[in-house]
């Protein structure tokens, strides 16, 4: 029997295997979510998950998930301009950092905004760092876990890229005085600044830009930087003013670029590295989650990938199919820490959990592919990001209309 003839493999067929769905909330009809998810324990004891939106009109949404079976929206804010998006956010204590990106260069506002969310219903702006400019679209992604520094993928008014798609690079912002954020360091991939020898463009040409900028308390002197078509870098940030590359790893070519996230598993000497699928109908297949031997951080070796179901079974379900975000073990008390399970979102491939006890043979241990959410233009679910809290409750979001799903792991 072919996959096409299989009556259980038709478009949108839901799969729930070793996950238990607790609730779904479409967030008041604004359920198109980005890739920022962070959990706060409010002063009154409530557990609030802060969620970034994929695009305007909404800025961010706070959801009370104290009872994960009954999530309740407590606040939802609007962006000032329709051409803005705030795709990324992170929370440290009661301070939330939000990334603002514009559709085109030279649009305002584009930058970093800090909010005091000690009263979740009333987020209060503390400061704004302007990153707009003639060659900048602002901030795409940020990392903020220690209350001191925001590490971000951002443009800047004083940076002219050699190619318009290479406008966002690594910037480190000191926010120890949250009222006055100030840049303390930056690094761009050689070849991306105007005047440098240009880099060879990839087939799909998604740009040589910074994406995820992860820094962990276990190694405050290391930055795990993904650079989209430029692969990934392990960076020495002992001196934040002079970040230095230690090693570089890429899978493209022959793969098609867009390296997205690198999560170190320090105790095991491993790195989990993700691509992002950006093309519909799996035209950029395969986009994968890679297991990398990082015992010697100067010599990174790919040893496995997390297996996905046959592309034929998903390519035509609607939207994208392939890797994107994973739970990143953010070093905060409200995040689950695991070096044996990798949980990732794969757009219409849903949410998948892998046991990497044996990192040479990652094994899928849980799957959640919900039905197409109501009103989605994609025709299928497009799970975009995932966060697991310290209670081991799993939160995942749809990119278009589905909003927030809460789940329990059962494996």
């Amino acid at each position, binding site marked *: *029997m*072919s*996959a096409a003839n*299989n*009556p*259980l*493999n038709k478009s949108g*067929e839901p*799969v729930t*295997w*070793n996950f238990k769905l607790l609730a779904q909330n479409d967030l008041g009809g604004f359920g198109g979510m980005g890739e920022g998810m962070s959990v706060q324990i409010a002063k009154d004891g409530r557990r609030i998950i802060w969620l970034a939106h994929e695009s305007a009109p909404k800025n961010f949404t706070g959801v009370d998930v104290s009872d994960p079976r009954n999530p309740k929206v407590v606040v939802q804010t609007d962006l000032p301009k329709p051409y803005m998006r705030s795709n990324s956010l992170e929370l440290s204590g009661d301070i939330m950092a939000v990334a603002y990106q514009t559709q085109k260069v030279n649009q305002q506002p584009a930058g970093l905004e800090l909010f005091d969310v000690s009263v979740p219903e009333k987020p209060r702006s503390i400061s704004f760092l302007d990153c707009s400019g003639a060659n900048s679209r602002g901030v795409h992604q940020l990392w903020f876990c220690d209350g001191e520094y925001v590490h971000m993928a951002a443009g800047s008014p004083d940076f002219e890229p050699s190619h318009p798609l290479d406008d966002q690079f690594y910037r480190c912002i000191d926010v120890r005085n949250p009222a006055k954020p100030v840049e303390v360091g930056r690094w761009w991939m050689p070849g991306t600044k105007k005047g440098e020898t240009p880099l060879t463009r990839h087939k799909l040409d998604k740009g040589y830009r910074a994406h995820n900028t992860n820094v962990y308390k276990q190694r405050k002197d290391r930055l795990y930087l993904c650079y989209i078509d430029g692969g990934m870098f392990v960076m020495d940030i002992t001196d934040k003013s002079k970040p230095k590359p230690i090693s570089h790893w890429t899978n493209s070519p022959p793969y098609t670029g867009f390296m997205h996230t690198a999560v170190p*598993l320090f*105790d*095991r*000497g*491993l790195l989990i590295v993700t691509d992002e699928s950006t093309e519909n109908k799996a035209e950029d297949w395969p986009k994968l989650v890679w297991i990398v*031997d990082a*015992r010697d951080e100067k010599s990174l070796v790919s040893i496995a990938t997390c297996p996905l*179901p*046959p592309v*034929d*079974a998903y390519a035509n379900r609607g939207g994208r199919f392939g890797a994107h975000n994973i739970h990143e073990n953010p070093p905060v008390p409200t995040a689950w820490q*695991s*070096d*044996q*399970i990798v949980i990732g979102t794969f757009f219409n491939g849903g949410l998948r959990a892998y*046991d990497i*006890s*044996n*990192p040479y043979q990652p*094994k*899928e*241990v*849980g799957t959640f592919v919900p039905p197409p959410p109501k009103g989605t233009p994609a025709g299928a679910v497009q799970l975009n990001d995932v966060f697991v809290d310290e209670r081991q409750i799993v939160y995942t979001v749809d990119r278009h209309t589905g909003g927030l799903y809460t789940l329990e*792991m*059962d*494996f």
Partner: protein
Amino acid sequence: MNSPFPSPAAGQFGRRLKRERGARLPVTVITGFLGAGKTTLLKRFLTTAEGQGTAVVVNEFGATGIDDVLVRPSADETVLLGNGCLCCITRTDLQQALRRMVIERERGELPDFRRIVIETSGLADPSPILQTFATDRALGGVFHVEAVVTVVDAVTGGDTLAWSAEARKQAILADRLIITKTDIAGEGASTALAARLRALNPGAEIHEAINGEIDPACLAEPASDQRNAFVAETAHSDGIGSFVLEIDEPLPWPVFAKAMDALMQLRGPDLLRVKGFLNVKDCKGPVVVQFVQHLAHPPVELEHWPDRNRRSRVVFITRNILEPQVRGLLAALQNLI
């Protein structure tokens, strides 16, 4: 595991699991003599919500009975059933059939089944089927037997148990015993049969079904690991007996492992089924152990104990192996290791 990438969060048996089966596919084995009502029970189960996504494997030649719920025939041995289940009538090796089903499922050629129910031949000894799932090399890495369910009919079951050693073995190895046809059996027949079954297998749950009506959980939920904690030693005909080995103090793993190695080597055919919780020294949760004759399932450490009882408790179903012999072996090894 001698890994270049050890995880400090792992135990000596690998990742600690929330439940015994971990992420493996649950398997229910249905045994019972010809005409006992296995197929009726299964047909009813497949119409329930719990039965959705079940793959039925009929492990016998010329099986009939469930074809009236088929929606479409297939050129090969695998056919789709009414509610998204599928049925594989295996005329070859069970292991081969199951392996093929897993591969075809991964390729998207078979529905995404969530449970396997194996309906055995009426005359089958369930031991070889349990052995099929015992090791990683076989199918233990993919499947996990959650329950052995034995169906006995109230009309003829008593007689069958009296004359058939296979029927007795089916009853003795069961996690759940289901008495059928109680509505047409004579008054008192089912009570007498229940008493007979209780004597054969004091630890198993006993349920009654009428026209296949039974709580679907009987086929869809794991057998309780606590069920045998109270069982006293019982002896049966055929030399088959059962006892629960209970140990108060945490046991060093090498002691138990070596003892079981010796038992399997010396008396493998007589170890019909051994299963239980072990309190292993330096482990956080209980270690689930299971043996079938000369095969050992990979031990699994659970994240948590199910209750406050921290004693090791392992059920032995054996032929002519008694509790003092096992205790003596453990004591001897404890003195040596």
